[in-house]
C-alpha cells in the first residue's frame, strides 16, 4: 500500500493537502494511519500535524464507512421543504436514529450541511451520490432498494 500512497501524494501534492486527502480516501474509503504517516514523510511534517489539519474537515474520514452511508441535508432550506419528515421516515425504516449505524453495520444515517442544491430540496447523499426532491416515501424506497439510485 505504501507505494500506492506515495504515488498519489506526489501526484496531488501540487494542488493542496486536501486534494491529496480526497485522493487517498478514494483508495480505502477513508484515510488510514499509514497514509497519514506517508503524508507526513512527503510533506516534511509529522503525523500529528497532518492529523491536526485533516481532522478539521468533515468530508475526511478516519474509519471505514458503512456500506451505505446516507447523509441528509439539515440546513434551513431543506428543513423548510420537509427534511424532518424524510429523516423520520428513514429512522423508522432502518430502526436507528440519526448518527447511528444499523446493527449489521450496513447502514449509517448522518447529517450533512448545505449541499448547494436548494432548488431541489430536501436532498441527501447516498455514498456521496446526490438525490434531490426526496419525500418520506422516496426515502423509504431508497432504503428498501439498498441505497441504489432511484
Amino acid at each position, binding site marked *: 500500500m505504501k507505494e500506492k500512497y506515495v504515488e498519489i501524494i506526489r501526484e496531488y501534492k*501540487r*494542488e*493542496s*493537502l*486536501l*486534494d491529496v*486527502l*480526497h485522493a487517498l480516501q478514494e483508495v480505502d474509503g477513508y484515510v488510514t494511519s499509514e497514509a497519514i504517516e506517508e503524508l507526513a514523510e512527503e*510533506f516534511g511534517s509529522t503525523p500529528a500535524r497532518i492529523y*491536526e*489539519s485533516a481532522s*478539521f*474537515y*468533515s*468530508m*475526511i474520514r478516519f474509519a471505514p464507512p458503512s456500506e451505505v452511508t446516507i447523509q441528509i441535508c*439539515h*440546513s*434551513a*432550506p*431543506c*428543513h*423548510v*421543504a420537509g*427534511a*424532518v419528515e424524510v429523516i423520520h421516515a428513514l429512522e423508522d425504516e432502518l430502526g436507528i436514529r440519526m448518527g447511528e449505524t444499523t446493527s449489521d453495520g450496513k447502514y449509517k444515517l448522518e*447529517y*450533512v*450541511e*448545505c*449541499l*448547494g*442544491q*436548494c*432548488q*431541489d*430540496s430536501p436532498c441527501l447523499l447516498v455514498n456521496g451520490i446526490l438525490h434531490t426532491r426526496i419525500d418520506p416515501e422516496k426515502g423509504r424506497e431508497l432504503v428498501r432498494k439498498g441505497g441504489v439510485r432511484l
Partner: protein
Amino acid sequence: MIREMRIVLRNAGKINPASIDDYISAGGYKALKKARTMDRKDLIGMLERSGNLRGRGGAGFNTGSKWGSAFQAEGPEKYVICNADEGEPGTYKDRIIMENDPHTVIEGILICAYAIGAKDCYIYCRGEYRDINALLKLAIMQAREKGLCDDVEIRVASGAGSYVCGEETALIESLEGKRGEPRLKPPFPTVAGFRRKPTVVNNVETFASVPVIVEKGADWFRAIGSLNYPGTKLICLSGDVVHRGSIEVPTNVTIRDIVYGFGGGIQDGRAIKTVQVGGSSCGFISPEHLDISVDFESMRKIGGALGSGAVMVVDDNHNIVDILVSISEFFAHESCGKCAPCREGTLRVAELVKRVADGEGIQADLEQIRTLADHMSRSCFCALGQSATTAISSAMSLFPNDFQSKLKAQEV
C-alpha cells in the same frame, strides 16, 4: 413584472460549458486581450471608480479597491484566489455559474492576475462540487492550450466540507494545508495573504462579472441596477415558493418581484410569513419590507443584509423556532473552535433553541438566548460567530409569539 438580465450568465444554456471554442465564438476572452493592452492602473480604476463593482460573495467590498491594494503592495510574488467555497445555506449561485460557464470565471481570474501582477492563481472549490472541480480543471487546460494563460498558472484546490473556509483568511489557511481557522485582520490578504504575500480573494460571481465590464465599459455597467451597488445579482430562491431556482436580476429589482414574479408566489396558496435574505447568517425580514430592492445598501437600511443573495421563503405554516433549530445547529457544527465565544456560544444557543422548539423551554431560556446572542455578536473572532445569532435575534423581534407558544404551559 420581473425581468431577468443575464450578464454573468450570458452564455448559460447557449454554449457547451466544456468547450472553449464555444466560449470564444460567443466573444469569450476578448476582454482578457483588451485588458492586457490596458495600463494596469487604468484597468483597476475602471472597476474601482467608474464601474463600482462590489464583491458578490456577501461583504460588498469594492473590487477595484481590493485589486488596487494588491497592485500597490511590494514584491513580485502575488496571488489570486477565486473563492468557490460556496457554503451559505440556501446558496447555489456559484455552482450555477461554474457549471454553465467556467471560462467566464477563468477569464475574470486571468484579468485580475494581469492587473495585480500575479503569476499563481487558485480556485478553491467546495468539496461537495466534485463534478465542477473536474470541469474547471478541463477549462483551465483548454485555456492553457490556447495560450491564453500566458505565464500564469491556475490550479483548482478542493475544500472538504467546512463552511468557515468561505471566510477569506480561513480559506487561505486551508489552502496552505492547515486547519481552516480565520486569521486576525488586519493585515488584510491584499497585504499579507496566501503564504503571507499580497493576495486578492474574490467570489466566483465577482470574477464572472469582470470580463463584461472590461469589454463593454464602466459606464455601461454602472447604468444597470441600483446606484450604490450597480450590475446584476444572482438570486437563489428556496423554501415555500412555487418555482425554486436561480435568477440573475438587475440590483434594483425588489424581493417581491423575485418571490412573486419569478418564484410564482407561495406554494399551496398559503400566505407568506417571512423571507430570509442572504442565507442562514442573515436575518429574517418582515413581509412589509418586500418592496426593498436586492442591493447591498437598501438591505442594510432595513437592518438586513444582501449576503450571498439567497432568498428563502417561509410560509405561515411554520413556527420560526423550528427553522431556527437547523440554523443554530448549523453554526454549532461549523464553528471552527478557535475562539471561545463562538465555540461555546453556538453550542449553547443550539441547545437552548432545541429545548424551546421541543416544548421544554422556559422564559429564562429566551433571556439566555438573547444574552448569548448579544455577547456573540460583539465578541466572536470572525463573521461566522458574529452572525451566528443574527437570524435568531431577528426572529425574536419579528415573531415573539412563535417563541411564547412553544414555552412549557405552566411557564407562560
